[in-house]
């Protein structure tokens, strides 16, 4: 049934002073074991036998940003095809086998990683894991599923052309990162998607799916011993090494200003932001707290208060840190009726200046920390969500004891830290807006189209 939520589920929410004591809720951290198979393949495990379900998530370092410029969309197409026929099974037979054990299994592409997952009832674990093995080690890339997936991607690209959100995001990335791979659309453009061949997607699988760039997280009804045996069976036949890869560093400055793509819609959509901070930066946690106060905690953030609560300008306004491998970004989004986009942008710019100039108050910082530390463990309420967490901790190289240490990093953030990092990070002159719609009275560069 259709539901309307009070706000879009974007980031967490925060609050102001309330109880005398801050809440420290980390006693909920699940117990993580590092399992190494006889063949030397490592995985992180949270064994929990109370529900007869097993979730395994994996990531291979290197993703869609490595697509050759003339083959944009290759990682996207390849990951869609891995479970469309493998080993002795053609596409329909493979899918039928997955469905008949009520499992779900699939792959996806991110800018920096190639992901995969399987979720199964524990009684069907051997069959499910074996299908995963086949998909990774013996994908067929038959002509029928390739052409079918290509048609589906081309259809989605068309659909994206009517989606102001998608267009605003593309426009912003183009303005922000120019020719850098991050500025390219991960699903490609029609011109490149039409050219991708079976050899291309096969090359992708050969280059990316390997053991030395693999991280695995497994959660649920499985023991360490069972997982150790399964790891060799599932991943043992992958090549030892992925093809070497290197991304150029992302741009360190944004142009600033506003760019508009005209579309006949009643509500304009804006993407905004500029260069941010990488995950390993010593200031990361301070930036995280600062962003929460600025626009991350959608409920009481300054932008939420000024744009939504006080003026009713938007249903959703947010900012997020997007720390990618080759560069970090601070990004945000907002949508408002055409007549009021100029006013909304002025408010965002104003709040950007204010945070950069003054930092945040002691009360704001205390409340942000209280929320960020208390709510963190509560979001991991299912096997697949915990498995994803295990993968991301490994990708970011945070250590097996990260869940026990994470809240201390947040607690250590001080008011002077926030002021310093806001000054370092937020630059109103570089703050770049990309708007799709028919915004009135907005001083901006205009573009006619975006590929």
């Amino acid at each position: 049934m259709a539901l309307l939520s009070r706000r879009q589920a974007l980031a967490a929410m925060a609050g102001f002073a309330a109880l005398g004591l801050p809440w420290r809720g980390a006693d909920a951290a699940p117990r993580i074991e590092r399992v190494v198979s006889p063949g030397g393949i490592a995985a992180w495990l949270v064994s929990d036998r109370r529900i007869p379900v097993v979730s395994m998530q994996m990531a291979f370092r290197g993703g869609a940003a490595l697509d050759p410029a003339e083959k944009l969309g290759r990682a996207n197409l390849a990951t869609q095809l891995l479970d469309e026929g493998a080993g002795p099974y053609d596409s329909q037979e493979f899918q039928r086998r997955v469905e008949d054990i009520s499992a779900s299994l699939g792959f996806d592409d991110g800018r920096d990683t190639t992901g995969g997952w399987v979720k199964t009832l524990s009684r069907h674990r051997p069959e499910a894991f074996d299908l995963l093995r086949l998909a990774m080690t013996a994908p067929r890339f038959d002509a029928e599923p390739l052409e079918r997936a290509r048609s589906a991607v081309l259809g989605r690209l068309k659909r994206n052309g009517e989606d102001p959100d998608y267009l605003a995001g593309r426009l912003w990335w183009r303005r922000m990162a120019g020719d850098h791979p991050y500025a390219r659309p991960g699903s490609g453009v029609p011109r490149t998607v039409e050219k991708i061949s079976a050899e291309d997607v096969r090359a992708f699988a050969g280059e990316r799916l390997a053991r030395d760039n693999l991280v695995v997280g497994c959660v649920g009804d499985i023991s360490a011993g069972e997982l150790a045996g399964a790891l060799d069976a599932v991943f043992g036949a992958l090549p030892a090494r992925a093809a070497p890869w290197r991304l150029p560093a992302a741009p360190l400055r944004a142009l600033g200003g506003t760019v508009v793509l005209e579309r006949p819609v009643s509500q304009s959509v804006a993407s905004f932001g500029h260069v941010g901070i990488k995950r390993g930066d010593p200031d990361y946690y301070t930036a995280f707290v600062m962003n929460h106060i600025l626009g991350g905690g959608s409920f009481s953030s300054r932008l939420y208060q000024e744009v939504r609560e006080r003026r009713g300008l938007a249903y959703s306004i947010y900012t997020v840190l997007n720390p990618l491998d080759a560069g970090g970004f601070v990004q945000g989004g907002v949508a408002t009726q055409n007549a009021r986009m100029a006013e909304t942008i002025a408010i965002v710019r104003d709040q950007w200046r204010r945070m950069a100039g003054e930092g945040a108050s002691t009360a704001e910082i205390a409340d942000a920390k209280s929320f960020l530390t208390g709510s963190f463990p509560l979001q991991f309420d299912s096997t697949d969500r915990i498995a994803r967490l295990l993968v991301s901790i490994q990708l970011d190289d945070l250590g097996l004891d990260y869940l026990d240490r994470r809240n201390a990093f947040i607690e250590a953030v001080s008011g002077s830290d926030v002021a310093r990092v806001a000054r370092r990070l937020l630059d109103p002159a570089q703050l770049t807006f990309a708007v799709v719609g028919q915004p009135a009275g907005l001083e901006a560069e205009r573009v006619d189209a975006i590929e």
Partner: protein
Amino acid sequence: MPASARAGVFDPRVFTLANGLEVVVIEDPRMPAVVHMVWYKAGSADEPRGKSGVAHYLEHLMFKGTRTHGPGEFSRLVAVNGGRENAFTALDYTGYHQTVARDRLELVMKLEADRMANLAVTEEQAAPELLVVLEERRTRIDNEPGAQLDEQMRAILFPDHPYGISIIGREHEIRALTLADARAFYARHYAPNNAILVVAGDIALDALKPLVEKYYGAIPARELAPRVRASDPPPVAARRVVLESARVKRPSVHRNYLAPGHRSAFAAMPGAPGMAHALEVLAEILGGGATSRLYAALVVARKLAVGASAHYDSGARDDSRFTFGVVPRDGTTAAELEAALDTEIARVLDSGVTADEVARAKRRLQSGAIYVRDSLQAGARTLGAALAVGRGVADVESWPERIGAVEVEQVNAAARAILRPERSVTGLLLPKAAP
């Protein structure tokens, strides 16, 4: 507890307070947290005529404060205690929920009980929130041609029943809503005897009961007006609607059939009471995944479409929809694809589904009842939604068993009863070259 020892899906505990509040507890100690949800048996379909959107507007205003907690304090308290929260409005109900650490349950219970009885909103707070709702409507519907078409199809399928109006409401009616309208809806529907409390997580019934008595038990029951909704005459003709726009870049074909919901499925339709379950199995056979009939025929074998889906919503209180959606491949026209969809529907009506298809679909649906236990929220949502439309806990708990009892002939009979031209609305979303 091992899976085999379970009697039902969630094994919930239930009790009812003297003031009529129904309480459901799902004890799940996997993490030291609880989900706390209050459901009101009032959704957009319970709005007065001409006041569409008021159920959802009120949901927004419920965060603006009470006589003892100032504007925004509810959310500030939840957040500073590390809690996550949200709310939602649907056709038949409205829900408010928080996820908190186990030892913060009492706090959210106190706050939620407070706003059940003591909402206090000023005109100054209500006015900008109406603008927010209008922006939400633009985001969800006006900026989405597919959602605009669906709104039109719904209006045709339910000409008088309030399911014909989008949950968020019609723009001109939203604009005219007042704080007094929202207050009236609140006074009429928000009462313990019209609500369901669901708590899931690391909490035992014995520990929960005194808290519920303390906070919710103090709120007096109110006299409730019966839930009366306009009804539609039986449909007599197939209907069509075309949305052609330069904004549309990718065409699609949609078909809705008027289908029984909870009450009609169990009472009025021929073939009751198994009709709803038979339709769930039918939707799984036709549209459930990559080996479903529609996907295998239209996308894989005939290469006419890039996507094909079938869906049946068994959760509606009154009549519901059995829906199809297909997206043509380049080179296929919408008309060709609609004809191909009709061919597949005719194949079901003429030859029926097979025993193997039914067995596979039932197995997948039943597995879903195991997966749903993997999330704290999912169980609370499933039970709350069922009770809010008048189903019982036993009904939810025995669902896998009843799905298991569905037979081939019931599926075929359900298909023939529902997939009839006169019950249908066809919608086409078509690009138009800019002038």
